[in-house]
């Protein structure tokens, strides 16, 4: 299992009463009480013990879900703490019901040496309120030229490797990385983008870009690299994880690879599952991300892929940016949007409520999927499991942006949208990470 860090704090003794306990992976859906002692789920039952000093949380009309796991977060540590840091980023995750996040190494400096990785992990240990891991870079400076010391990085706790933010343009380097990483049995996470096709692009190529005149790149820029890397992983018998998939034909390539037995996992982001390039017509920098929002046909394929299990992870690609990096003309705006605090509420509102995807499927893709892809301990509502869970008011409707973000940045593409489901309290590794229980039962706040 990968090394994850958080503040070693007092582990709360908590009794949650009257709540629905829902964990599809465990096959659990009951209304019962749940006792947490010493960081572990100690009892689940009609009437659990009430140890002295325990906090009794009235969970009536609430649902307890396993803690969510996000394999793709930018904590901006080290070096870009003006955008986010381990404290604000992890608090943002806790507010979204996450108990485990993995942070990307496209930092300043890049996390490409053991000492930088150790420093980042130390930071998380000092500041993070949920379990936090880091991926290390595949190539030095993410320049795509020479491999990092992957064995050293693995020994020091890297959760995997990625040059996220950039593709690995060289097929030769990609092959060498797969060969070298294979005995480490850690996945290489891939940002799939054929760079000569995406150069100068700010959005997805299609009718909207034609009308706006914005530099655009074709969907095939992603699919070509997906196809290449699935073939390379197959040849080298290595594990790959495909990040933020956004294009129909890429999903077809993944499905074909899976059929041949290639060890490939893949993720989709809430924004790609919910929005399309039509949003770019606002010319707001909050709709600029990489990969860009694609067509509605691509979005439908992502939803189908999620339902069918081809897409096995939901990842936010939480990418905080300061106001001055986004409140500029679209072409000058930085790529990326935040997402931790809105992920499940957006998906409940847009996919579960209209009946497109069952909640159980979404929860699997936010727990089991990423844990399988990155060998993480799966948060579970099970006696004896570490207490990684959150209490939700799944009936509450609220408007994104109405309450302040816990993240240091506010570049959400969902600002102003009505969403459903509010995380009230989060416990990560037995520690109270988020507490908004007083917002319970507010009903429709939007």
């Amino acid at each position, binding site marked *: 299992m990968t090394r994850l860090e958080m503040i070693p704090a007092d582990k709360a003794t908590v009794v949650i009463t009257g709540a629905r306990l829902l964990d599809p992976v465990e096959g659990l859906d009951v209304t019962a009480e749940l006792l947490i002692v010493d960081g572990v789920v100690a009892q689940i039952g009609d009437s659990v013990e009430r140890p002295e000093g325990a906090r009794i949380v009235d969970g009536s009309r609430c649902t307890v879900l396993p803690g969510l796991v996000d394999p793709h977060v930018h904590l901006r540590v080290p070096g870009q703490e003006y955008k986010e840091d381990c404290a604000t980023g992890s608090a943002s995750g806790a507010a979204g019901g996450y108990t485990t996040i993995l942070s990307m190494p496209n930092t300043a400096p890049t996390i490409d040496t053991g000492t930088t990785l150790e420093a980042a992990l130390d930071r998380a240990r000092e500041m993070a309120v949920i379990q936090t891991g880091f991926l290390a870079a595949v190539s030095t400076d993410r320049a795509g030229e020479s491999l990092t010391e992957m064995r050293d990085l693995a020994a020091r706790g890297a959760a995997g490797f990625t040059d996220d933010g950039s593709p690995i343009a060289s097929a030769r380097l990609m092959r060498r990385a797969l060969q070298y990483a294979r005995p480490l049995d850690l996945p290489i996470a891939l940002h799939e983008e054929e760079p000569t096709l995406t150069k*100068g692009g700010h959005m997805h190529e299609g009718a909207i870009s034609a*009308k706006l005149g914005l*530099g*655009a790149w074709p969907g095939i820029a992603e699919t070509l690299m997906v196809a290449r890397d699935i073939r390379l992983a197959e040849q080298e018998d290595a594990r790959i994880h495909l990040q933020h998939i956004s294009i129909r034909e890429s999903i077809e390539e993944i499905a074909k690879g899976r059929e041949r037995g290639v060890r490939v996992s893949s993720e989709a982001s809430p924004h790609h599952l919910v929005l399309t390039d039509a949003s770019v017509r*606002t010319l707001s920098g909050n709709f600029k991300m990489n990969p860009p929002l694609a067509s509605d046909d691509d979005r439908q394929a992502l939803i189908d892929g999620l339902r069918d299990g081809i897409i096995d992870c939901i990842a936010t690609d939480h990418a905080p940016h300061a106001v001055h990096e986004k*409140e500029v003309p679209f*072409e000058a705006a930085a790529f990326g949007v935040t997402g931790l605090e809105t992920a499940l509420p957006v998906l409940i509102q847009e996919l579960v409520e209209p009946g497109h995807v069952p909640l159980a499927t979404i929860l699997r893709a936010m727990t089991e999927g990423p844990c399988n892809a990155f060998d993480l301990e799966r948060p579970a509502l099970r006696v004896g499991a570490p207490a990684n869970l959150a209490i939700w008011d799944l009936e509450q409707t609220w408007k994104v942006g109405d309450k302040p973000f816990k993240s240091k940045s506010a570049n959400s593409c969902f600002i102003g949208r009505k969403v459903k489901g509010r995380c009230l309290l989060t416990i990560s590794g037995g520690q109270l990470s988020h507490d908004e229980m007083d917002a319970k039962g507010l009903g429709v706040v939007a």
Partner: protein
Amino acid sequence: MNDGRRHLLGMSDVDDTDIERILETAAGFEDVVVRDVKKVPTLRGRTVVNLFYESSTRTSSSFELAAKRLSADVVSVKAAGSSVDKGESLKDTVRTLNAYKPNIIVIRHPQIGAAHLTAKWSDAHVVNAGDGKHQHPTQSLLDLYTIKKRLGRLKDVKVAIVGDVLHSRVARSNIEGFQMMGLDVTLVGPPALIPPGIEEATGVKVSDDPESMSEADVIYVLRMQHERMEPGQNFVPTLREYARTWGVNSRRVKPGQVVMHPGPMNRGVEIAPDVADSGVSLVEDQVEAGLIVRMAVLYDLMNRPSIGTVIDFRERTGEWGAA
């Protein structure tokens, strides 16, 4: 969000009624610009700021002159030599100029959406004088004026827009404006310079066959925009081959056809000198129309708050984003 201010940020801010009205107003200014005292008091006491982040001859001079002909106080700011050189953001520059309480800000900027942000950050009416490859609405209005004046009509006039559509804000505004007024638009050029999806987005016809220009009443020639092309893109192999294939020369132009160009021209590339300097060229007519049409736009924004459709991108489309 809509505070009643009217803007001209793109051609989607106007409809055919607005265009008819603006062209009529412009016609009314024809005699003002030729008489001895070339001035009317219409905008006396009003302030117009021209904010130009890109080099421009026609557009900046005609906007400045248009405002002066209407007796407005005019401040022209060019990015070169201003605080922009010191790294000032667009927002801070706009906020600074807004402090002078201008009635109208005219902005040209190399990036798409700059005019929309200016409208958001200021209290003025905003006119987009070109934002990157996106929109240049006053160019479309002056082109419509020019066509109507020469051909006597707009409806069913066949226009071939030729060349570098991909990088052209003029083409994007004209596709919209021409279609609104019932002209029949075909885009002609090498495949890589016609943006994929433009047919779906607008309903225009597209052709890579230079012969299809022969069908048109108006050949509208676009400038090859080298400055917006990244090295290695290979949109066309060479300018020589482009000129030989899609360049408009006297052999290409059929009797009865007229030729337009928004300028500046690359003579010998997209247009041959024997066409540019001939009687079929409407290039100077376009420049003349530019002055009076811009006068009409400034007048319209300031004086017709309740007539016609409100010129406001946000109200018209409901797409004004939250950011």
